[in-house]
């Protein structure tokens, strides 16, 4: 995998205090927000403008899959279109690879869209009068790449999504899942660093959807691409995302890893969302383990060196399996050769409920790095 080589700290997309207000008197409404701090409903009442995105800041790093989760009307589709300036922000800045999109002239903006930021749509948007191959090569075609070369690159991309046999077919001959694969192939053909995914799998049936989610994650990691992935489905966000942002009423209310959001929801809204999510594969040993000292104090007779060993990244499901095999009621969590904590059955039950260990709570909240 090439993921090891890339600099995961490089920020590719930097969104700084971005607002989008829709409506005839949007500039006046924007002023009112800045000067008087009006709320969304006041803006609607006084200016009859709709706040689409409200004061959003986020950073997408190289190689990271960043999910934006929100229900319909939460502004997530508007937000993703601000990232490649399909929609111009009312206020705030969007930087792509350090370049402020609003400072670019039309030709430079086309260049950024063509080479650095790809996009995949919920509706797929395959041109019906073109074959799969011609659709896939579209991005290179508009850049003026020659026919032989662009078809070669497009064929490679189609092979990656498993559609080598279908290059000469028309989109209408393909199933929904296959069409979306073509959409993905089209996005990677232009070889952008960032791919914007606007609810790409929402219209597919559950089985195909899960399959595509896994394929997408694998492919993105293999190619070392970053992705911003919009979804209204928390399960999908958890399956795919390295980090997840939860959006409500145009604002981001929490950003973090799936584990972080499940264990430490920022407010009742998020808590309600994550209530139904199974913790078995989400919660990891490091969030629920009991530190060594308190464990020793409580169990002076236990010989820690003879416990079954596990890693901080092992999930609850794995830990339960190990505990069942173990003769003792505890597991040792080893990191860099040192015992960093102990997993007791009590810790496991707490993990299943999604309550972080009282000792580990402070630690878990700081784990925001992508766990690629």
């Amino acid at each position, binding site marked *: 995998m090439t993921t090891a080589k890339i600099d995961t700290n490089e920020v590719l997309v930097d969104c700084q205090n971005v607002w989008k207000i829709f409506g005839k008197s949007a500039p006046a409404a924007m002023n009112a927000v800045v000067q008087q701090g009006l709320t969304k409903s006041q803006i609607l009442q006084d200016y009859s403008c709709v706040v689409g995105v409200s004061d959003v800041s986020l950073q997408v790093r190289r190689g990271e899959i960043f999910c934006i989760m929100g229900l319909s009307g939460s502004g997530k589709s508007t937000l993703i279109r601000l990232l490649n300036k*399909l929609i111009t922000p009312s206020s705030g800045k969007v930087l792509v690879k350090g370049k402020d999109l609003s400072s670019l002239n039309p030709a430079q903006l086309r260049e950024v*869209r063509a080479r650095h*930021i790809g996009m995949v*749509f919920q509706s797929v948007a395959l041109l019906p*009068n073109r074959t799969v191959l011609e659709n896939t090569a*579209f991005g290179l075609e*508009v850049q003026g790449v020659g026919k032989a070369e662009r078809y070669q690159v497009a064929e490679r991309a189609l092979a990656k999504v498993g559609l080598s046999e279908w290059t000469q077919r028309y989109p209408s001959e393909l199933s929904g899942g296959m069409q979306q694969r073509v959409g993905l192939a089209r996005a990677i053909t232009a070889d952008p660093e960032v791919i*914007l995914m606007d609810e790409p799998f929402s219209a597919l049936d559950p089985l195909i959807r899960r399959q595509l989610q896994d394929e997408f994650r694998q492919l993105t990691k293999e190619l070392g691409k970053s992705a911003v992935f919009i979804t209204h489905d928390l399960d999908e966000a958890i399956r795919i995302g390295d980090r997840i942002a939860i959006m409500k009423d145009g604002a981001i209310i929490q950003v973090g890893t799936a584990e972080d959001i499940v264990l430490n929801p920022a407010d009742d809204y998020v808590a309600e969302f994550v209530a139904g999510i199974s913790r078995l594969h989400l919660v990891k040993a490091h969030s629920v383990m009991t530190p060594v000292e308190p464990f020793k104090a409580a169990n002076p007779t236990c010989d820690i060196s003879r416990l079954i060993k596990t890693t901080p990244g092992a999930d609850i499901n794995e830990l339960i399996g190990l505990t069942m095999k173990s003769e003792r009621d505890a597991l040792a969590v080893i990191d860099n050769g040192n015992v960093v904590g102990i997993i007791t059955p009590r810790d496991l039950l707490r993990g299943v409920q999604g309550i972080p260990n009282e000792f580990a709570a402070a630690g878990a909240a700081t784990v925001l790095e992508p766990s690629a």
Partner: protein
Amino acid sequence: MNTPDFSSQFDEAIDAGLSWLSDHGEVLFDAANAVLSGVYKGVLWCLALPPYYVLALIIALIGWRAIGARFAVIAGLALVFCALIGLWPETVSTLALVLTATLLALVVAIPLGVVAGLAPAFDRVVDPCLDLVQTMPPYIYLLPAIALLGYGPATALLATFIVALPPALRLTSLGIRMTPRHFIELGEASGVTGLQMFFKIRLPFAMPSIMAGVNQSLMMAFGMVVIAGIVGSGGLGESIYGAVRTLDIAKSINAAIAIVILTMILDRLAQSAARSRMGESQ
């Protein structure tokens, strides 16, 4: 107020207006006349060049390629029938009139339709004009045309041109405007230029609508060319007009049969062209 007095004054005013127009716009109208009859004569010369069975064969072959063997046979035989009833020169000149008027109308209508589709402001100006043109009975256009261009094919062509213009313009504009939103986004997100957006995305989606417009313009032109028989257009329209005036029922029915044959052949061909474009984009 004395009504007869007013009415004759009004007539005089209109007369004076028209003669002022034809005096001062003489160059313009002569030029229009020259262009219209020039193109018409060219097209007519081409169509009249081969003997009737060759032209019938060519049209049958086109029909065979575009639609099928059965249509080809029927169309070929029907055209030969037109020749056998002694109306071949009239049939050819009607065909030339229709093709010329439609061609000229499309040359103007499609570019204007594209502009109207892309610029809503222009569309708002054009739309009421087209409404006006389409609301009036087509017959009306013969009057100013005959006043300014005189008796003959040029007048028929001008009136036919005016009638054939709106459908193609309207449907082109509609097609260009109706590009699905997410395909516009696809284009923008892929970094297309304005021209690429037009030729690679908007135009393919507009094609079925434009072809439907072409077909409708053709049919409107056909209707008008027959009416234009009364201003000396020549062709089948004039045959019918002459036959009706002399109560020569048999001849007028013959001409009507020829018109029906020609209309059906052209309509089927134009429709199949439109459909094949649509099939491509499905």
